[in-house]
């Protein structure tokens, strides 16, 4: 087994042209289980912010992707602005849906968020924040951010936890 894997990985990397040493960035977002009488899955946005609060990349936006034709409540995009910080920083300049970024709202649990290597590769060396914002219908809003340095010098995991609308946010850095 051991031998097979060590052979397989470089082989795969060679096949897809991905350098085995590429610096990587991965994250997971926990949507907490809430005991409320009326629950709606939260809208969530995750993005990478530079030291000056400008946005380097939006990693994920989970919203009600239904359109007026199949949603009695109308366009889910109406409430994107309730992700208030993301909306100010970059949301209002984006056109959803965005391939590989936007998706439907997620149930309670931990969900992986991957940043395309291409986006990570474009990050200039420096201090960044991975920011996650959640807003829930008839609920609250919360922003959690995880600071990190790019590029990372060693493989490491950074964590931060929300207290109301978000659970644990984990950021995986690979040099």
């Amino acid at each position: 087994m051991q031998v097979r894997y060590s052979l397989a990985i470089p082989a795969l990397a060679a096949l897809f042209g991905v350098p085995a040493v590429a610096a990587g960035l991965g994250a997971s977002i926990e949507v907490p289980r809430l005991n409320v009488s009326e629950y709606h899955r939260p809208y969530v946005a995750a993005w990478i912010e530079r030291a000056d609060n400008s946005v380097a990349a939006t990693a994920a936006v989970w919203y009600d992707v239904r359109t007026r034709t199949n949603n009695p409540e109308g366009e889910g995009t109406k409430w994107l602005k309730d992700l208030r910080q993301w909306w100010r920083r970059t949301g209002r300049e984006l056109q959803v849906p965005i391939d590989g970024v936007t998706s439907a709202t997620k149930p309670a649990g931990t969900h992986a968020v991957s940043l395309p290597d291409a986006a990570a590769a474009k990050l200039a060396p420096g201090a960044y924040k991975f920011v996650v914002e959640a807003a829930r219908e008839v609920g609250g809003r919360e922003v959690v951010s995880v600071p990190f340095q790019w590029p990372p010098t060693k493989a490491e995991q950074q964590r931060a936890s929300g207290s109301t609308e978000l659970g644990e946010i984990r950021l995986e850095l690979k040099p």
Partner: protein
Amino acid sequence: MTLSIRTLAFATALTAVGMAHAHNAWLLPSTTVLSKPDTISVDAAVSNDLFVANHAAMRLDNLLITAPDGSTVKPESEAKLKHRSVFDVDVSTVGTYRIAVVNAGGFASWKDKATGQQKRARGTPESLAKEIPADAQEVTVTQSVGRIETFVTVGKPSAPKPIGQGLEMVSTGGAFTDLAKGEKATFALHIDGQPAKDLEVTVTAGNTQYRDQLAETKIKTDDKGQFSVTWPTAGMYWIDASTKDNKTTMPQAKERRLSYAATVEVMP
């Protein structure tokens, strides 16, 4: 909470906008305390955010304005806009006016015998009787009695006469329009004129769009149906309660859903 807003959404939301989700139904008076006769404006809408008209206008078919002497006052300049309804009220006599939207009716669900499809309807006992086919299966009819109201006072407040029907908030001596930050107010909830014991009341400050947490306060009524609130800040507040029982007055209904929502103003 779920119950009340569902019921209210059923009763008041525009069908075009839909009723799948629960929303708050509210009245928002421009002023609640006046020193002399004047005209006030009221917004009426159904939305999640208090008091932001961003969902649906409230239907005003069942708007009932009662003057301090018990007489009925007609609204003026009534208009149903896209996201809210508006109307003026000429408040000309001293005392407290009751401005209420009272929704009474029922909703039914059944399975169509031929297609097996789930059907729904709402309306009056008569209209439901007409809509439900004789051979319908698994028919459930639920009566709903909802009251959404607010109070406006010219000069010295008076106590609006209790309705004695459905779920309502009644005074325990204090006025509905004499609330101040830091002061404790006690009201009672009644069902059909009797104290509503051990019922959960939700009190939520307006301007929910300007804070991250909804920060609603949940209080249970005591043996006399009373509950107390010490107002943390000034502003408009939404008081909401709901329950259900089997004291239906609709022949087909087995269950009655009762809901109540009031908007009150707290002064600094």
